[in-house]
């Protein structure tokens, strides 16, 4: 094994935070690919440049994704990373594992790959970092025979992910782990055989705390919410009162100012609550969400490329999320159908909605306009009217003439 002199990245082994360089060296002790990755990285630090080429098309038979081809421009100098492909292993919902399963994953990876991983990648997959083209089929056979499948890449449904949900959270408004598993199973074909215009991400969060950041990085964000009154345990409120200033920390920080506390009783005007979770998150023993539970569906978030970042837009203010999740699955298919019909290549769904207009999208998926979908109405009076719109206004006016009562 070649021994690289790495004075620059060695400096990243000092300090209290666990060092990725140490991890790379650890793997590099027995693994040539990992060892060359160490030398390769030192070279990047020396020249202040990366040396990875654009990914080529590599993969396993019958799949169009799940493996990211990666080659070095300086493979001659570092043959262990001449090929250094990424394998995305579809993580279990909520990132729960047994040691037995993890050891099995590690053993296979040591056999065929660099011994380096990302636990986990940005999308959620367990990322196996660095292997060669001719090992891919063996890797896939080994993993899939033991119950592990590849995640997704390219213009496909990307590996869905979710928050810990009912596994360990009192605020989850639906079974995020269950939904995530069900959607992943339902859409295996859309994940593994890229036929979309571009990537599509689904992330499921159990409440507005949004621990998987779905509102910012999912084409479809499924965020738990509720209807009905927040459940209050007034005795626990009193316990909190002994250790916190409820008026300063809760009442005055309520964005809708729908709460009051007189030292005896906490009152909530639930009709004006926007369910932001602040009071519940800070008084978790005293307050619980309302009893009618479901999710808000938002569409379209993405990072800045191409024309700027987007946050997801509220489309369906409330939907029940219950097994077998038929309603959500049907909605997803309708969304994809409209996207497929309207997108140019490499257009995310948010970008297409911007181009074609929200109305076209909502009508296609059968969702009516609702003020919950907007922060505020349009400013400029430039708007489309269909013939049907005008006909319905005229019909309403005719009706009003009869009844003598206006409907605005």
């Amino acid at each position, binding site marked *: 094994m070649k021994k690289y002199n790495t004075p620059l990245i060695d400096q990243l082994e000092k300090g209290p935070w666990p060092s990725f360089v140490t991890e790379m060296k650890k793997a590099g002790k027995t693994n040539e690919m990992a060892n060359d990755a160490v030398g390769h990285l030192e070279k990047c630090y020396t020249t202040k440049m990366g040396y990875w080429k654009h990914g080529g098309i590599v993969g396993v038979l019958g799949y169009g994704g799940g493996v990211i081809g990666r080659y070095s421009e300086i493979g001659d100098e570092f043959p262990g990373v001449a090929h250094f492909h990424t394998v995305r292993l579809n993580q279990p919902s909520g990132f729960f594992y047994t040691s037995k399963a993890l050891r099995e994953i590690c053993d296979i990876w040591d056999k065929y790959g660099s011994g380096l991983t990302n636990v986990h990648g940005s999308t959620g997959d367990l990322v196996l970092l660095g292997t060669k083209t001719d090992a891919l089929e063996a890797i896939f056979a080994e993993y899939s025979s033991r119950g592990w499948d590849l995640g997704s890449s390219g213009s496909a449904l990307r590996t869905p992910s979710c928050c810990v949900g009912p596994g360990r959270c009192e605020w989850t408004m639906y079974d995020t782990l269950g939904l995530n598993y069900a959607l992943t199973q339902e859409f295996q074909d859309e994940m593994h055989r890229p036929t979309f215009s571009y990537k599509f991400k689904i992330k499921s969060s159990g409440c*507005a705390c949004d621990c998987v950041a779905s*509102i910012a990085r999912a084409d479809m964000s499924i*965020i738990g*919410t509720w*209807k009905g009154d927040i459940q209050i345990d007034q005795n626990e409120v009193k316990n909190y009162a002994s250790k916190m200033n409820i008026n300063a920390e809760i009442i005055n920080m309520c*964005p*809708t100012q729908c709460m009051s506390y007189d030292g005896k009783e906490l009152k909530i005007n639930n*009709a*004006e*609550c*926007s*369910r*932001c979770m602040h009071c519940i998150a800070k008084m978790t023993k005293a307050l619980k969400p309302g009893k009618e539970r479901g*999710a*808000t569906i*938002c569409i379209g*978030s993405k990072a800045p490329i191409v024309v*700027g970042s*987007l*946050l*997801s*837009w*509220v489309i369906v*203010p*409330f939907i029940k999320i219950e097994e077998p999740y038929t309603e959500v699955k049907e909605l997803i298919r309708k969304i994809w159908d409209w996207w497929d019909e309207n997108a140019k290549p490499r257009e995310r769904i948010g970008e297409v909605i*911007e181009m074609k*207009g*929200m*109305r076209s999208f*909502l009508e296609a998926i059968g969702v009516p*306009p*609702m*003020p*919950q*979908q*907007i*922060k*505020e*109405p*349009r*400013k*400029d*009076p*430039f*708007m*489309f*009217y269909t013939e049907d*719109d*005008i006909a319905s*206004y*005229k019909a309403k*006016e005719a009706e*009003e003439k009869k009844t003598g009562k*206006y*409907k*605005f």
Partner: protein
Amino acid sequence: MALPQRKTDIGPPHFEQFLPPVIKKNYGKWKYHEVLSHNTMVHVAESGDKLWTVRVASPRILSTDTIREHCDIAEKYCGGYLRYTTRNNAEFLVSDEKQLEPLKKDLASRGFKMGGIGYGITNVVHTQGWVHCHSAATDASGLVKAMMDELFEYFESKSLPNKVRLAVACCVNMCGAVHCSDIAVVAVHTKVPTVKHDLFKNMCELPTVIGSCPTRAISPDPANKSVKINPDKCMYCGNCFTVCPPISIKDPERDGVAIVVGGKINSLRSNPKFSKLVIPYISNEPPRWPKVVAAIKHIVEVYAANARKHERMGEWIERIGWERFFSLTGIDFTFQSIDDFTFMRDTMRTASTFKW
């Protein structure tokens, strides 16, 4: 009689010659003012001098006869001085308190309407409409008259949580600050314009017409030496008609008005705001537009019943949320209220936090 010698570029007369003596004396040295009633306020100078103002409604379109009657009154009570306001009211100024009641009595006896000061509804900013504008899709003066007759109590005596500034625009060109009003009526077209191809090439410039379209709906039509308009992109703004007369957009049965709410100009408490679209279409119903008037009155009444003192319409709505505005007023929420023009990114909701 020979004409007098013309002079160019002299500009307006210097305002100083039109200032009453009390103003000249106390110019820039006012200390405070008090609103005494819906029609009267007093300004007090550091010198102790006082200036009473009585505000009088005006239809903005004035005959010279009426202006002369203003002059008669000003001469009788105000030393011949008077002024008008940005919102087109007349103001009579007296520095002698003894003149105040006689002035008001005289105004009342002549049928002049006093009011518009403080937390109510003052005169309506508006455009020319059918009276004098080529691009009008409705009449503005008629709408104003119909609205103010109905809302007159808020001008004369009845108070609201804060001012409610009304405006009427007879097309989306919106002369005046219509787009930042508490409630504004704006006339809209609803059909794609037609083009008289035979007249186009002599009367219109192709690049100007294409450039006039905010949604890029207009493209050249080489066969007709004219332009064609893509109906999927046209939002009927009429700007192409403004730059090219052979393009026609008027349609009596389809033209109508929309209602926008929640705008403001001043920076008190919150920043200036645009008005937002809440009712996309009401048929044009001259001479008194009963549904438009009823809609505005309804919105004012819901605001009056729900807003906190000092809250302008837009501040109240932003506090309670637009979804609550729609539920409190019972106004139908339509696709037209969803911005698909320049502000979509900033107006769609990007959180699961809203009210049912």
